[in-house]
């Protein structure tokens, strides 16, 4: 199991990523959660850091990864990741994403903003851990996270950077 502090070092030292970049602050948590789980991974909303890293780590572990993206431009930048183990799909609406199945990790970082809580609720009983990005209090009026987060038995907030990341679970405690 990789702790978050260790994962920070991996991101900085091995991948050469600057964690002060808003789009990268979830990476230590993603890597740590990935190391604590063993089944399929779901990524809602793709990214320049999350998609490559989840792709390679899942491929190495022979785990299936499903990435859904509603923004055509973002999709064009990640569609080449498609493999037997990694499904990369463009959807007009996340209603089209079939996500009601068991997941080791679900990563929530998609748009539109209000859609995030809808999909968190959809996967809540299926996921060991749900990792949500942009969970600092200030933009809560954009995402409406706070009400939904109350429904989870376990919650852990990673607040080291300006942009926060939260781990949720109804099944497993964060240790």
């Amino acid at each position: 199991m990789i702790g978050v502090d260790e994962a920070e070092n991996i991101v900085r030292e091995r991948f050469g990523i600057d964690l002060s970049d808003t789009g990268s602050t979830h990476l230590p948590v993603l890597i740590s959660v990935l190391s604590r789980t063993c089944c399929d991974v779901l990524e809602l909303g793709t990214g320049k850091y999350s998609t490559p890293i989840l792709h390679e780590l899942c491929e190495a572990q022979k785990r299936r990864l499903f990435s859904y993206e509603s923004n055509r431009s973002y999709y064009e930048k990640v569609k080449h990741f498609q493999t037997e183990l990694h499904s990369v799909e463009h959807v007009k609406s996340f209603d089209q994403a079939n996500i009601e199945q068991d997941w080791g990790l679900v990563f929530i970082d998609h748009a539109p903003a209000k859609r995030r809580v809808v999909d968190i609720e959809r996967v809540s009983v299926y996921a060991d851990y749900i990792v949500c990005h942009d969970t600092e209090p200030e933009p809560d009026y954009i995402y409406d996270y706070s009400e939904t987060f109350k429904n989870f038995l376990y919650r852990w907030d990673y607040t080291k950077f300006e942009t926060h990341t939260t781990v949720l679970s109804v099944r497993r405690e964060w240790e």
Partner: protein
Amino acid sequence: MEKTATELIDELIIVHIKLYHVIDKKHEAADMGFMEEAGYQGIVEDTLNGQRSALKNALSEKLGDEFHEIKVGSQEGLQR
């Protein structure tokens, strides 16, 4: 010295991130009508795709059907 699986995975991730950036710049240039710049970024993209394929092949040879645990520090080797 032969690269370890972890080193190959790390390099692949770095190449992927560069590729994302280059594809982004290529699309941006094309959208703005800067076709020469878009063409240049396309060449960089091809180069990176070549590196990616080479790394993928090397990793595939090393791992085969094996499961590779995410490694930290100096730990290395294949584990189930």
